[in-house]
């Protein structure tokens, strides 16, 4: 939070290269704009508005109201990018367009999804959840039975362990925030605490793990420590108020707040209580990474503190110098976001961003920072801290510990997992935004 060198000459600068104190935009900010932004802001207000006329849609009744609403036809660009559109026999990923969204809740149709073998077409009336293993009495639940239990509602993110993987590249890959960070989303989940169902089955005192399994074709399975399950795991059935969508695990998924996306097993059909992890394919081979010291990671459960700027970002060109709102998302699998700092000069100076309420644990938090772009080069960065005191690492710190590739991989590849370092966007004098390492 050091002041910029120019800070001394401008009482409204929060940090270097144009970051503004919030009050500069409220009340006194008007004076500031007049006093010190004459050139830039003058251009924004100089041209008079066109005379107002009635538009065609104001002169006749509109269309029929559909039973299920959809976004405006003018919003067709706000969609996920799908990397396996023809459902070839392999995985498929759909990424959230963060640069086109605001707030903190991802619309259900835009929530990221990774499928390992297509989306199963599950008849909810025939779906069953089995709890067995180290329990007194194995039990089977169906959807109708679970709907009688008390459900818990909580807002929280899901992030793929491979989100942001292109940033393991030794050179910055030119892609937008959707391609780089689109495998994270946030929703309100409602479901039955798994602890309630485990208590009903009677867990053996020497049990330590569960192995959760899906009803999709790969019968995807992951091990979860019993302590986490008893703490806050949900058998989630609703997402943002409606039944969770097929891509999210209809009719039920495991929801493990703050834990690696792949562990939040979709189409949940079975929980085996055990005294050891299963060492399943996904936890022993896929979501593990070679380290620079020659070792390999294992059981990297937590999605650690992270933030990135969604606007401005690559693809969102700045039209002209003037005041812009730097906005982005911060989250941590360890709890609430404590603070987010923003830099416009590549990390030389920082200012504290405003955090939108509510700041919920293990959920997206929206941050905002006013910025006067003077038309010169700038490097925008955000850095988050969580309430447990963890700081989002710089890329240099991260790479020292976790490594990077020796040559740039495909933007769709997953060279590593759990990348949570700072992302840098460079703004060129022509207003274009590029991904850089700074």
């Amino acid at each position, binding site marked *: 939070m050091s002041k910029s060198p120019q800070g001394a000459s401008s009482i409204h600068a929060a940090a270097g290269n144009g970051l503004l104190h919030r009050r500069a935009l409220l009340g006194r900010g008007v004076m500031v704009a007049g006093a010190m932004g004459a050139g830039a802001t003058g251009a924004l207000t100089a041209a008079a508005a066109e005379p107002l006329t009635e538009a065609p849609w104001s002169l006749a009744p509109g269309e029929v109201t559909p039973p299920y609403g959809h976004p405006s036809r003018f919003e067709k660009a706000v969609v996920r990018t799908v990397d396996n559109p023809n459902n070839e026999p392999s995985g498929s990923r759909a990424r959230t367009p963060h640069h086109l969204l605001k707030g903190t809740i991802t619309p259900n149709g835009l929530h990221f999804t990774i499928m390992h073998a297509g989306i199963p077409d599950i008849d909810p009336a025939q779906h069953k959840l089995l709890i067995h293993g180290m329990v007194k009495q194995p039990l089977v*639940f169906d959807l109708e039975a679970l709907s009688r239990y008390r459900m818990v509602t909580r807002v929280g993110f899901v992030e793929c362990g491979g989100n942001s993987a292109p940033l393991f590249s030794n050179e910055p890959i030119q892609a937008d925030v959707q391609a780089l960070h689109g495998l994270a989303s946030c929703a309100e989940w409602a479901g039955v605490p798994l602890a309630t169902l485990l208590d009903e089955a009677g867990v053996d005192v020497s049990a330590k793990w569960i192995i959760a399994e899906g009803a999709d074709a790969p019968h995807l399975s992951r091990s979860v420590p019993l302590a986490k399950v008893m703490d806050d795991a949900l058998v989630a059935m609703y997402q943002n108020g409606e039944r969770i969508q097929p891509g999210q695990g209809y009719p039920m998924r495991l929801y493990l707040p703050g834990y690696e996306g792949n562990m939040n097993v979709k189409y949940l059909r079975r929980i085996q209580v055990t005294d050891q992890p299963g060492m399943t394919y996904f936890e022993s*081979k896929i979501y593990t990474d070679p380290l620079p010291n020659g070792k390999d990671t294992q*059981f990297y459960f937590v999605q650690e503190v992270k933030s990135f700027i969604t606007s401005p970002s690559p693809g969102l060109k700045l039209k002209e110098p003037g005041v812009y709102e730097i906005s982005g998302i911060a989250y941590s699998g360890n709890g609430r976001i404590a603070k987010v700092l923003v830099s416009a000069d590549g990390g030389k100076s920082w200012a504290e961003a405003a955090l939108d309420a509510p700041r919920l644990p293990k959920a997206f938090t929206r941050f905002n920072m006013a910025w006067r772009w003077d038309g010169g080069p700038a490097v925008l960065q955000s850095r988050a801290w969580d309430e447990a005191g963890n700081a989002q690492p710089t890329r240099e710190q991260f790479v020292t510990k976790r490594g990077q590739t020796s040559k740039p991989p495909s933007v769709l590849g997953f060279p590593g997992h759990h990348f949570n370092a700072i992302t840098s966007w460079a703004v060129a004098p022509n207003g274009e935004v590029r991904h850089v390492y700074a």
Partner: protein
Amino acid sequence: MRDLKVAACIVLVLAIGPGAAAAETPRLGKPISQPDLAEWDINILPDGTNLPPGSGKAADGAKIYAEKCAFCHGDKGQGGHAVRLIGGPPKASLDGGKTMANYWPYATTLFDFIRRAMPFTQPRSLTDQEVYSLVAYLLAANKLIGENDEINATTLPKVRMPNRDNFVVQFPDRM
């Protein structure tokens, strides 16, 4: 006084014990017997728990591989539009190259995953015998067992995977 406390505790346990819990939740889980859940009981644990009867050898596995796996994984396991299964670099890195021989910590995972998820378009279609044979073939092709070694519920968990002790648990405090 102490006796009174003990007595009070007993009363308390009776009051909030199973009876009280039953009142708080609907308790609608339907009991199921082990034989009736057996069809779904497919997790294989790394110590070999739940490996089924049967056995297999590499020669039988090679035939099944050619018929059901080679199309995606390549005729020699070199990889195609699905991942490589045989050979590869000596060490994995962030540039790739995680292989059965240099990376997978447990051979039991191979049985578990093939049985639950493969072949891609027909999961759960292989018999346990076929899975054992395929596991034997892949382990032998990767020089992790001998060509004529038999793979069964006793031998599979004993296969020593070279990279097993190289993993570092990231959040030991969470386990």
